[in-house]
């Protein structure tokens, strides 16, 4: 069972992750004796400033970036807003944004607001995805124009785990002199990233998706990229983000990035094998089930599976009876009345979209847990299908 809570099988790591014990340990001094302000002139605060600096170095190392390119924020959403709004302010003549139909709400809703709230001052192109969740590079190429201020494309999709070719896309944007932002919240820590070799101008990440606590994020800003801050205030973060630093969490994030680098191989071998085992066995054992998203161009930890003719929330609540935690793209779980915009953009039929379950694993999962889920799921789906007026099994 998952360490930390013996009653829980946690397979919802794309939602949030367990704070690593090593991270907790690294943070503790800053919740107790080391409470100084990093901006203070005295040694007591100055020491804390050094720890923030160390954390910045560790984050930069995981991303293949320079420490000066790392700005700490409060979350992934803040990083996304900061990057996109900065690009629009540094080149106010340009009024066009290129993004995709499957972005996280942090980018999706910001772009919608930029269109509607400004009275359509800004124009947004949303790239389509195919049935496997992949983009069409020709459509992307055609969408870039003289008027495009920024491209914002997620590195990996939170619902399906599908990975977009952001390296190639950033190169294409650079050729046209267009800024490129990527929401890499799901990718960081799961796949190798080396920003110094790429044309990415902005990258967002979020601490709580890689075993750091909630409430801390990072915006990577490539050296030389024009920038206008989102949060005005003090001189913190080289004047790029005002506000006293969330020191404890920043230190925690630094440690989490160190750990992520150490466990990258395990993530892409053992965790991937667990994911594949779960996926293959479930698809084989349960009729009318299917994988959502590209089979290989995908994060090693994510499996999004649809069980036709049953509804996701009902599935999740049955899983909950066994302590199994996952997510669903069904309407009922989102609080809205329509199923996931990602699955709809992929053209997943309603019969399947409402019954989609996302399993997202981490290094803390074990083969015993995976086998327990494999053992429990068929009966859950069967019992709900017996209730379903659409199931003719």
């Amino acid at each position, binding site marked *: 069972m998952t360490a930390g809570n013996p009653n829980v099988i946690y397979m919802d790591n794309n939602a949030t992750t367990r704070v690593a014990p090593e991270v907790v340990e690294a943070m503790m001094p800053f919740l107790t004796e080391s409470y100084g302000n990093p901006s203070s002139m005295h040694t007591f605060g100055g020491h804390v400033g050094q720890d923030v600096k160390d954390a910045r170095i560790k984050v930069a190392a995981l991303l293949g970036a320079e420490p000066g390119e790392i700005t700490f924020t409060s979350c992934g959403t803040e990083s996304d807003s900061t990057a996109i709004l900065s690009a629009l302010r540094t080149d106010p003549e340009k009024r066009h944004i290129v993004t995709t139909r499957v972005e996280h709400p942090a980018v999706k809703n910001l772009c919608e607001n930029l269109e509607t709230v400004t009275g359509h001052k800004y124009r947004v192109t949303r790239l389509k995805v195919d049935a496997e969740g992949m983009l069409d590079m020709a459509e992307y190429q055609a969408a870039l124009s003289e008027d495009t201020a920024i491209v914002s494309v997620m590195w990996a999709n939170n619902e399906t785990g599908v990975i977009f070719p952001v390296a190639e896309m950033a190169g294409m944007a650079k050729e046209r002199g267009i800024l490129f932002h990527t929401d890499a919240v799901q990718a960081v820590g799961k796949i190798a990233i080396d920003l110094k070799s790429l044309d990415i101008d902005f990258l967002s990440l979020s601490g709580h998706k890689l075993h750091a606590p909630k409430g801390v994020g990072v915006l990577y800003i490539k050296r030389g990229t024009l920038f206008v801050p989102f949060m005005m205030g003090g001189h913190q973060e080289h004047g790029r983000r005002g506000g006293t630093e969330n020191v404890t969490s920043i230190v925690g994030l630094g440690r989490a990035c160190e750990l992520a680098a150490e466990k990258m191989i395990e993530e892409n071998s053992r965790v991937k094998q667990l994911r594949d085992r779960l996926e293959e066995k479930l698809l084989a054992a349960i009729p009318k089930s299917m994988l959502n998203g590209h089979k290989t161009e995908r994060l090693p930890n994510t499996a999004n599976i649809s069980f036709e003719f049953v*509804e996701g929330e009902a599935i999740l*609540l049955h899983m909950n009876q066994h302590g199994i935690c996952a997510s669903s793209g*069904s309407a009922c779980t989102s*609080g809205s*009345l329509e199923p996931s915009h990602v699955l709809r953009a992929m053209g997943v039929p309603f019969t399947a979209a409402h019954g989609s379950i996302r399993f997202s694993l981490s290094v803390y999962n074990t083969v015993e847990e995976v086998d327990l889920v494999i053992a429990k799921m068929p009966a859950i789906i069967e019992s709900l299908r017996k209730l*379903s007026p*659409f199931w003719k099994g």
Partner: protein
Amino acid sequence: MWEYTDKVQQHFLTPQNVGEIDKPSGTGDVGSLACGDALKLTLKIDANDIITDAKFKTFGCASAIASSSVLTEMVKGLAVDEAAKITNEDIAQALGGLPKEKMHCSVMGREALEAAIADYRGLKLPMAEGEVVCECFGVTDLEIIRAIKESSLRSVEEITNFTKAGGGCGKCEEKLRKILHDTVSGKSEISIPHATPKRMTALQKIKKIEEVLEREIRPGLKKDGGDIELIDVDGDFVIVSLRGACKSCNKSQTTIKEYVEKKLRELVLTSLIVEESNS
């Protein structure tokens, strides 16, 4: 995470009366896969109008399944007239309450019950006769007005929670606001019709058909230089004769089936069959 009562949990985890009654006295089929929830309710009703058995099949979330399950328990043993009085609030109450965003699940239960009773009695479903306001979920103004009145709804958000209307593309939000305003201020002209009995006397039927032909159909045909005449009504068969330009029109069959028959079915009786006179 939704906060469900123990009663909801209990009905969700061990649902009662699952299945379909063989040769049911009445069937209520509401919702759809696209909408994210659907319920098929079947009733067995004896000669004394008592519901002796009820079964359900539901596609949907925990509260949809629980609402269906508790509904079957509520109606069993009731006289049809008594069962017809059950509202969505009654269903929600029997479950110890539902989260407000989930009230539409209890509304679905009530709609299925209404549909099953209407089916048993051979009545038309009154709610479906309204004008569709929310295209995404196919919700009519009548359903919305009733929900506003019965559950004292006071915002568009509440309307969405109860009826799903406005929960899709959101384009009907303005219409919903107007309906809410009109209903609450008592301005709404629309009154909720009562189910019209299917069995009318032959004379009533002929009179109604004549009325509809005169009022709804003839003006349209006359505009195109044609006309229509009622020849006979034999049971559900309505024999008509087309006149003027319509007579020689090669689309006359389409006119009869797609236009005349559709209108008569809609406004008089769903079982009517319109045919052209041979003479």
